[in-house]
């Protein structure tokens, strides 16, 4: 966190325009408009069922994987709508990586293979290049020192916090420009949580992070911007420092002070 006033013009990486989403007849999001800045951490907060997870799943086209789910609107990444006809969801998800609530290393795969799998699927076969990218990803995920001597062990043999960092390394391996995280620390104890939070702060130098959290203090500690959702609507999008000291909207104030 910096106390300095940023005078540099921030670059928008993702522009969400008039986004609405449904699960069959039930509307989960309505008319969301939001600019996500490059190399910033944006936290999505709000009560259960407000559409936080649906929102980030719309950012990498995971929403459409649910039966009966559909959406309207645009998600423009670097000038191109990810929902344009002909866009490849697999390529989009490679560029917009995702880490889930519960760490999910691929069962039966070694630590090395968990990280290398995305690279292999994208056509990289050269061993030296794979080694280099695996090491770099594990270093960026602050896991290298702990696992470098037993890369052939199963990913699932790691602790919960290590598994989550392994999943982050896996997503980083394919050089995404955005990293989505859906409650990445809710299944972790405080020390692992602190590791992940520190990691998010470091990661923003290379990727833009959007994460969902129920933990208000975590949002305050880690993010640069806050998007507060309620009943499928975006109530407030603000700088984190302002949101937690002088929120613009009374509903935001009620939510963060627990007077809901």
């Amino acid at each position, binding site marked *: 966190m910096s106390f300095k006033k940023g005078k540099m013009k921030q670059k928008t990486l993702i522009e969400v325009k008039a986004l609405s989403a449904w699960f069959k007849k039930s509307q989960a999001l309505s008319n969301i408009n939001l600019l996500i800045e490059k190399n910033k951490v944006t936290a999505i907060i709000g009560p259960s069922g407000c559409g936080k997870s649906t929102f980030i799943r719309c950012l990498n086209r995971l929403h459409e994987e649910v039966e009966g789910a559909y959406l309207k609107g645009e998600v423009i990444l670097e000038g191109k709508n990810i929902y344009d006809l002909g866009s490849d969801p697999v390529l989009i998800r490679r560029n917009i990586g995702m880490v889930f609530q519960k760490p999910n290393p691929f069962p039966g795969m070694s630590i090395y293979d968990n990280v290398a799998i995305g690279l292999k699927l994208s056509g990289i076969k050269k061993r030296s290049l794979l080694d280099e990218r695996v090491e770099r990803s594990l270093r960026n995920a602050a896991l290298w020192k702990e696992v470098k001597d037993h890369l052939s062990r199963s990913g699932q043999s790691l602790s919960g916090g290590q598994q989550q960092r392994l999943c982050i390394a896996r997503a980083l391996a394919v050089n995404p420009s955005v990293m989505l995280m859906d409650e990445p620390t809710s299944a972790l104890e405080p020390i692992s949580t602190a590791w992940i939070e520190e990691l998010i702060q470091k990661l923003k130098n290379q990727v833009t992070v959007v994460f969902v959290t129920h933990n208000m203090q975590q949002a305050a500690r880690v993010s640069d911007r806050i998007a507060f959702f309620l009943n499928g609507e975006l109530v407030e999008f603000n700088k984190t420092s302002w949101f937690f000291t*002088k929120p613009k909207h009374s509903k935001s104030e009620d939510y963060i002070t627990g007077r809901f």
Partner: protein
Amino acid sequence: MSVKLFDERLNELKSLIASMGGCVEQMLKEASMIIFQKQADKEKLYRVIRDREIEIDSLQVKLGKYCFRLLAVQSPVAKDLRMILSIIATNTSLERMGDLSLNIAKRGRDLKEDPLLETSLHCLEEMLIHISLMVVDCLDAFINEDENLARQVIIQDRKADDLKEKICFELKSCILKNTKLIDTCLQLVGVAEKLERIGDQATNIAEEVVFLQTGMDIKHQQQK
């Protein structure tokens, strides 16, 4: 801690601020009696003021402790955070007001009378009434979270400064007329200075009210 309990704690803190403020208001009244009422038992009033100052000190410690605990366990945000920060700042201001009022009482107790001082004392009484009103208003503004009243208090501070200047001018004339009055005049200059500082503290509290209500820090803006 539940939100209901937290709100109760905040109200307790505000009650403690009100108690401290009540003490300061009384101290100023009693200090006024010491200076301006010829029949007053100055020594007795001084002891009462001194006891009130001790009470304010103990309330300050208590309030500081409660605020510290609430910050630690509740991690307040938004208006809750601004409220606790304002209470901490107001706590300090009120304690300073208590010290200054005691100092005024001490100077008042030792004052010597002289007909030449009449005009100066009249100005001083006007200033004391003005400052007392500022104190009452800043406390009302704080307790009722009344931003408009707080802004009026801030405006009133200029008049307090002008009154002090006027008193100093009058006292200089007294000294020129009778140099034997120099000690008494210096004591009265001291009283005017302490009153002015109480006015500054009232202004600080009023600025806290604006911060509490708007999130904007307006300190030192009139100096620019």
